[in-house]
């Protein structure tokens, strides 16, 4: 059975364009995964739903050229042995951690899975890291509290001298049990929590959540609302890229880069506050549209700021390009070849810098991206230099898109609140600045959230960082890590 046949068997679901849901039988769960893997499709997310919301079920979301397929496998309400489902880690290596999370959160076990806990650390005790043996090998433990102003996580390096033989990550320190917390919210309020799954991607999450909600209630939003959401999403991309470009310069010893780019980022944040009421748009996207509208003067401020930022970024890019010291640090550091990226499922911005030319805004555009025609940017170098280039390219393109949105912004309402919804299911999928953000939402009685799973692209990319660092030197780790800039909170749920 080809992977297209599974689409034909599935039923359409609301939210992301072309999304379908198929209930898989026990033997079919693996068959679906094999068919999609053979077709070169991506596994977008894997999650579990516990018994409190009906039959315990494990879900897998696949992204293929013509749509999004969600496969659901009921696991019965039985004991541990009967709730074991077939693991997918051999087909999609990064599924291993998601399966560990499913076991920690809802108790469903995959076959042949890593027995170690992932998100639930329990009451301490030693976590069995994989040991590297050999003459002169020693370990460097780092974290969970890091030296800089960043999120918590633990890195265990096995090194000889300064050379890294192996990195093993231990994450979950920011685990707040967000899926459980969602179930305490009304569906019409859940976007507030969604925006705080990973604060640096607030717009992407809130939009994906609202897309799922609006899909579940078959609610159309006004065109202006969709355009304003795209404006917010591109501003979020610009802010993050500016921040990272500065930090990457700084990590390579070029403080000038941090000074200049953090100044530009501050200008965009202030323009955002003037035009949309918040520096970071944590509360801008709401069910039915946008909580804030854009005035003519606000639009002018944004247009002027983004135009100026785009021009200065071109100037700064030439300074970065011509700086021998930066080029020396960036080139060849933390390389992920396109072959390795494809095998490990590297996604989003980092994937595009390693030859994985996928961008949902272009491949399967949702409104208003079907009208905006964003250009795809990509590289194949796969090193820090390529990820820096990728950010410069995407920054320029997002600045262009902001201009295009501000010119073409339709008149009309900026929000049309959806009616209360009972008993619905929807899925939202948005290309955030880091990569695809997926939200699956099930709404139950009285408009309460029955289940909600938010998925961060960091799940795919964290394991790839373990490969990217092999053979590099320890002092290059901060730079390589920053060039991916993955989310801890988004991953730790």
């Amino acid at each position, binding site marked *: 059975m080809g992977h297209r046949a599974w689409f034909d068997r599935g039923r359409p679901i609301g939210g992301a364009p072309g999304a379908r849901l198929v209930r898989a039988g026990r033997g079919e769960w693996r068959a679906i995964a094999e068919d999609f893997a053979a077709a070169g499709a991506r596994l977008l997310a894997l999650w579990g739903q516990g018994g409190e919301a009906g039959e315990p079920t494990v879900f897998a979301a696949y992204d293929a050229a013509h749509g999004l397929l969600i496969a659901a496998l009921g696991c019965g309400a039985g004991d541990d042995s009967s709730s074991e489902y077939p693991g997918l880690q051999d087909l999609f290596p990064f599924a291993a951690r998601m399966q560990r999370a499913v076991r920690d959160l809802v108790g469903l076990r995959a076959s042949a899975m890593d027995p170690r806990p992932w998100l639930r650390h329990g009451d301490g005790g030693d976590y069995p890291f994989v040991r590297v043996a050999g003459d002169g090998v020693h370990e460097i433990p780092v974290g969970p509290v890091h030296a800089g102003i960043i999120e918590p996580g633990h890195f265990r390096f096995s090194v000889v001298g300064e050379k890294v033989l192996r990195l093993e990550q231990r994450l979950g320190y920011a685990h707040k049990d967000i899926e459980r917390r969602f179930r305490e919210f009304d569906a019409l309020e859940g976007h507030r929590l969604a925006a*705080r799954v990973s604060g640096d991607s607030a717009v992407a999450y809130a939009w994906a959540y609202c897309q799922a909600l609006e899909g579940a209630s078959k609610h159309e939003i006004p065109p202006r609302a969709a355009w304003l959401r795209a404006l917010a999403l591109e501003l979020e991309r610009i802010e993050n890229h500016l921040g990272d470009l500065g930090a990457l310069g700084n990590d390579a010893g070029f403080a000038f880069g941090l000074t200049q780019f953090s100044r530009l980022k501050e200008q965009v944040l202030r323009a955002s506050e003037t035009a949309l009421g918040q520096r970071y748009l944590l509360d801008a996207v709401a069910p039915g549209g946008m909580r804030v509208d854009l005035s003519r003067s606000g639009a002018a401020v944004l247009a002027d700021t983004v135009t100026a930022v785009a021009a200065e970024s071109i100037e700064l890019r030439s300074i970065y390009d011509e700086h021998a010291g930066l080029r020396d640090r960036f080139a060849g550091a933390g390389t992920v070849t396109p072959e390795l990226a494809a095998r490990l499922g590297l996604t989003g911005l980092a994937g595009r810098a390693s030859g994985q030319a996928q961008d949902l805004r272009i491949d399967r555009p949702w409104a208003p991206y079907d009208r905006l025609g964003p250009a795809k940017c990509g590289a194949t170098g796969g090193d820090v230099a390529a990820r820096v280039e990728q950010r410069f390219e995407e920054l320029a393109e997002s600045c262009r898109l902001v201009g295009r949105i501000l010119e073409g912004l339709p008149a009309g309402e900026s929000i049309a609140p959806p009616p209360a919804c009972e008993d619905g299911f929807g899925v939202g999928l948005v290309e955030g600045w880091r990569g695809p953000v997926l939200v699956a939402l099930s709404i139950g009685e009285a408009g309460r959230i029955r289940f909600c799973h938010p998925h961060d692209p960091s799940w795919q990319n964290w394991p790839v960082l373990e490969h990217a660092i092999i053979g590099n030197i320890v002092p290059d780790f901060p730079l390589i890590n920053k060039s991916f800039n993955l989310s801890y*909170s988004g991953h730790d749920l």
Partner: protein
Amino acid sequence: MLKTLQKIRRVGCVSEPPPAASAAAAAREREALQGRILEILGRALCIRVVDAGSCNACELEINALGNPIYNIEGLGVRFVASPRHADLLLVTGPVTRNMREALLRTYEATPDPKLVVAVGDCAATGGVFGESGESLGRISNVIPVDATIAGCPPSPTRLLAGLLTVIEAARGA
């Protein structure tokens, strides 16, 4: 190199005065503040940031304090890499169960006298994440807190104002 130097010259100094009670005071505020920090500590105020489980938005705004517009280092405030070098812990949250021990150890590693400031609504109250088996809620549920700075996330201006209040109060105490 020439381009870099030209850019530095063209951009010039963009730092703004810190938040002050009145506009007239703003001009003198920077120098006065440096003086007050020196008076209280005899040197720069050293801050150690601990993310005890936040959504990372608070970190974005704490990082912004270092940009040339807020220029917190110019006020005599430094972010340090070890709690052993810190006078003040700036903690974001809510505290997760998985971060509880690391937070306690960081607190114990900070020499006395020390100040703890809980940053953001989640650190102050548990915020949108509330309290559960995995989210232990506000920072003061785990370590003593001297002051809180509200906001989701608090803006850099609010962070600066909050820090000033804490320093003032410490001097009064």
